[in-house]
């Protein structure tokens, strides 16, 4: 699966629209993921995962930051997220299936806040991008 030129344009475009709200989107994504897929909470036993949690907000900001980093280096996501990839492989070891769940929730958040901008084409590109990020983060697992 490769990101085409139009995929990259679509992803950059939607993230430009998201702009400074990316941190909130990150927090909302996590909150929805914990509610919709409770098994994902098993990776955060040390967190207060209740609604409005400061820890979830902070972590959402981190996740959003990583996605933005990937968008800004969309021609070399593996390079941009190399350290994060190491972290997930060696320390966090989040099962690969969970990146799809996070991706689904991020798409839902974007659909809610940017319904008009999430055309079928942009939806397809964003889904591909999120898959690519997930693949990079699990690339060094074995």
């Amino acid at each position, binding site marked *: 699966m490769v990101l085409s030129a139009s995929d990259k344009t679509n992803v950059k475009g939607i993230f430009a629209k998201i702009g400074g709200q990316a941190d909130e989107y990150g927090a909302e994504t996590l909150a*929805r993921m914990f*509610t919709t897929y409770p098994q994902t909470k098993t990776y955060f036993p040390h967190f207060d995962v209740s609604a409005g949690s400061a820890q979830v907000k902070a972590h959402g900001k981190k996740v959003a930051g990583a996605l933005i980093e990937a968008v800004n280096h969309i021609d070399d996501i593996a390079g941009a997220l190399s350290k994060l990839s190491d972290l997930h492989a060696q320390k966090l070891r989040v099962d690969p299936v969970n990146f799809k769940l996070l991706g*689904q929730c991020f798409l*839902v958040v974007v*659909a*809610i806040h940017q319904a008009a901008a*999430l055309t*079928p084409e942009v939806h397809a590109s964003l889904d591909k991008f999120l898959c690519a990020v997930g693949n990079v983060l699990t690339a060094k697992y074995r």
Partner: protein
Amino acid sequence: MVHWTAEEKQLISSVWAKVNVEECGAEALARLLIVYPWTQRFFSSFGNLSSPTAIVGNPKVRAHGKKVLTSFGEAIKNLDNVKATYSKLSELHCDKLHVDPENFRLLGDILIIVLAAHLTKDFGPACQATWQKLVGVVAHALAYKYH
């Protein structure tokens, strides 16, 4: 048998009341074919699927999307026995249509995104969780008679 809380049933029916089955069904199927193009393999008789514009405008896609979501409504009317409701449809998808059940999960996820786009702020986390559970139950029921 799947257990639904009163709150879940309420979230399902309140969302369903706001759904335009024809529009949402058409949009969900079109997005499935666009976002996961390999799903087009089941629709070689549908004519022009050569671009997102062609898919969105394709009358067969629209009609089939409406059919699929209308059928979803049957599950909602029979939440306490979705497996029985879909027994024949499950056999059909296995024996005649030869559809990998993974496709039901893909369509379910797409439907969630379509609902989110239409309902926006009304599609809160509890709502999303309930509907993800529902699409999972439907997917499971459709796969249940596979052999």
